[in-house]
């Protein structure tokens, strides 16, 4: 590239950075923007504490593993970092900030700049910040244990960070591509169903192998252990361990392989970004052929016990969500969580005396059901976010807001019920059947939690809305005020329900917990009813702000 080319690219990148800065400064003109900044600061403070605490822990572990002459154990630190870096942005989309850079394509931006901007946007993400902090902790730990390893470890961890960053972007870009088209979405849906079915077999198979042929399991575990060594986290750990043992050539070989991974993943990302750069449209439009008209009259859905507008809103919400691949992916996360915990690294101690209680069905079901509720927060706390300019329709039509909100709440409650049922089946398959008392207590607790979340969510959806395109993957962030309050609500709900259980256990009366939760659920349902009763007034008072926020281009 010529000097003029570099200057032009630098100027463009500076302009983009300036625009992002101005957008941030301009957002502070409103009270909501200022509150959002405060909320964001609090959230980031929380992340900083987790990051620094984690870095200290990782650093200590790295220090001892190197000092004790076992640097190979660094792999036990790098794999969790890798998983966190990749999984957190999908599981906690509320914190993911990866703005749509395709808007920039109208300008004469060259592909290199576009690629860099996309990577830079991705780097401003909590997962990247935490992953980098923890990696830094490892670097400090290794450096303190053996200072001569510091430059090499820095090099390796930089390559490891680059891999994680590029891999995360690549996953986002490809999943978004697959979920955008109906055909590929259906294929992914079928794959997921197959996965669910295969999960049913895991329990019996595990039982069979653990009872009858332990050596096979051990061989399989050894195979996995060997396999991980040629994957990026394992390679990074090996590179450090090999140089630590003065095997420089092997160390360079491992680092080279790690860099090859970065390049390969970078190429996969490049394929996607180049397609975007050339103006690819991810919609179904191109794939939608002109079909012969369907002359059959398809009536709208009927919801027994509810008014017609409530049923209409329910149908609209379900249809919209079924076409939103990213939302569907978020909703199946509880199952993945159960699988990861069941077969993750912690599982190795399952049979030992150190077995952690998370593996018991008695705790797995409440935890997974709670997580199922958490995955709904994007919807529950931002009821109208996905409607965009459609919010005007709700204000223009002769229907009370109470019915519209009720329709949305019925949708969310139905999804929660369905998810809880699926989670229950998954827990039985993976962990064993939870006891009846645990199942009942969880369901009552869930009723209480759902009522609280829906009540607060309905109010926040109007007070703090955020336009949300459910078809894009990880490029948007919920209002930070909403995120902070919803976190507070979860702490309150879990704290209250947990206290009920603790008190009941303390006095040796498990029924007391259920009774307390029933009482709490009744209070929460009364609060929910009160919110619904006043929602029309609240919606009217905040109409202007709601419409302005959601109709924003």
């Amino acid at each position, binding site marked *: 590239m010529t000097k003029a080319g570099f200057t032009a690219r630098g100027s463009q990148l500076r302009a983009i950075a300036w625009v992002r800065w101005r957008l941030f400064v301009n957002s502070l003109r409103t009270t909501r923007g200022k509150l959002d900044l405060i909320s964001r600061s609090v959230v980031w403070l929380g992340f900083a504490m987790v990051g620094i605490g984690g870095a200290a822990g990782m650093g200590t572990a790295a220090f001892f593993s190197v000092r004790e002459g076992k640097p190979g154990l660094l792999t036990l630190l790098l794999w969790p970092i890798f998983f966190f870096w990749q999984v957190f942005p999908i599981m906690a989309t509320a914190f993911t900030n990866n703005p749509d850079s395709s808007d920039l394509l109208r300008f004469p931006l060259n592909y290199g700049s576009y690629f860099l901007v996309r990577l830079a946007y991705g780097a401003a993400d909590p997962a990247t910040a935490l992953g980098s902090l923890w990696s830094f902790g490892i670097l400090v730990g290794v450096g303190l244990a053996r200072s001569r390893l510091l430059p090499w470890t820095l090099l390796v961890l930089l390559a490891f960070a680059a891999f994680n960053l590029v891999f995360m972007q690549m996953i986002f870009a490809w999943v978004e591509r697959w979920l955008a088209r109906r055909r590929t979405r259906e294929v992914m849906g079928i794959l997921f169903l197959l996965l669910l079915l295969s999960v049913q077999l895991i329990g019996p198979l595990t039982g069979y192998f653990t009872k009858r042929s332990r050596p096979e399991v051990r061989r399989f575990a050894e195979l996995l252990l060997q396999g991980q060594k040629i994957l990026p986290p394992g390679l990074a750990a090996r590179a450090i361990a090999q140089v630590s043992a003065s095997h420089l050539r092997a160390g360079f070989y491992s680092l080279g392989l790690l860099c090859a991974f970065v390049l390969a993943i970078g190429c996969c990302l490049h394929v996607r970004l180049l397609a975007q750069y050339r103006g690819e449209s991810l*919609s179904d439009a191109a794939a939608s052929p002109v079909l012969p008209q369907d002359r059959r009259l398809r009536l709208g859905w009927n919801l027994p016990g509810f008014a017609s507008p409530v049923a209409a809103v329910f*149908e609209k919400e379900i249809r919209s969500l079924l076409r939103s691949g990213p939302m569907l992916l978020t909703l199946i996360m509880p199952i993945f969580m159960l699988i990861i915990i069941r077969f993750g690294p912690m599982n190795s101690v399952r049979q030992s005396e150190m077995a952690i209680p998370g593996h018991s069905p008695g705790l797995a079901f409440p935890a997974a059901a709670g997580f199922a509720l958490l995955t709904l927060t994007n919807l529950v706390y931002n009821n109208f976010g996905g409607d965009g300019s459609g919010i005007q329709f709700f204000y223009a039509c*002769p229907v009370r807001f109470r019915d519209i909100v009720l329709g949305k709440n019925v949708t969310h409650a139905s999804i929660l019920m369905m998810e809880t049922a699926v989670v229950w089946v998954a827990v039985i398959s993976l962990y064993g059947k939870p006891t009846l008392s645990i199942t009942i207590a969880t369901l009552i607790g869930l009723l209480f939690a759902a009522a609280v979340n829906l009540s607060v969510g309905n109010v926040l959806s109007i007070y703090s809305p955020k336009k949300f395109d459910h078809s894009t993957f990880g490029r948007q962030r919920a209002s930070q005020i909403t995120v902070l309050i919803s976190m507070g609500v979860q702490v309150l709900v879990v704290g209250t329900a947990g206290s009920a259980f603790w008190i009941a256990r303390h006095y040796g009366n498990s029924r007391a917990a259920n009774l307390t939760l029933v009482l709490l659920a009744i209070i929460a349902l009364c609060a929910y009813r009160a919110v619904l009763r006043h929602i029309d007034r609240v919606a009217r008072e905040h109409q202007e702000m709601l419409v302005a926020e959601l109709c924003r281009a």
Partner: protein
Amino acid sequence: MDAASTICTQSLTRRFGEFVAVDGIDLRVARGQFFGFLGPNGAGKSTTIKMLTGLLAPSSGGIEILGLDLATHPVEVKQQIGVVPEGMALFGRLTGYEFLNFAGRMYGLDRETAAKRAVELLDFMQLADQPKKLVTDYSHGMQKKLAMAAAVIHGPKVLFLDEPFEGVDAIAAGTLKTMLQGMIARGATIFLTSHVLEIVERLCSHVAIIHQGRLVAQGALEELRSGVEARTPVPGEGLGSSGERLTLEQIFLRTVGGMRRTDQELSWLG
């Protein structure tokens, strides 16, 4: 307020902080009128239409639609009006049929009627050939037609249209005009804003012009024309020179005083 008017406003005002977007306007639109609401960019047209349809609360003043106070009877008013607002108010992740069916039910139609009318409207608007296409994948013109279909699915007595012909091709515009004229013939009232003055001149019997938030002219098109011609006779233009009447564009420009500076040019433009 005026009981004979279908749409009647009294000192309708809307402020955004210090800025007065609509400044005490008194509109009168009688039943069966095809009413054009004109004004330059930022004059307050969309703000007015939003207030008339309940999408924006006025800062002061009153609105009556079909004799009902919008502030006290919003649901009753909304049952009898249809609206195509500025942003079209569509739900992108539905198909055209699903959206119309949904709109029909939200406007109080039973399931069968909503479904039948949705099919009829899709046929009429020539949107039925791609039933699985999502609204988000529609072209701008198709979205406009769909928004129009949703606004009329319940057979409203009053229809509010904000720039209905913007981005619509000639064929689609013809379809829309036929539908609107049919509605007028059956006694409905239509209130539209448009920058395409030729269309307004051809369709509307009555016109109001808003400028800087104030109503500067209102009445039948012929009355306005006569008034402007009498007030501001310009040699070489309008009646008296070639015998031709003033066009709506000339009336509009003279009313709002829209003269472009001729001493300024962008010399660097190719």
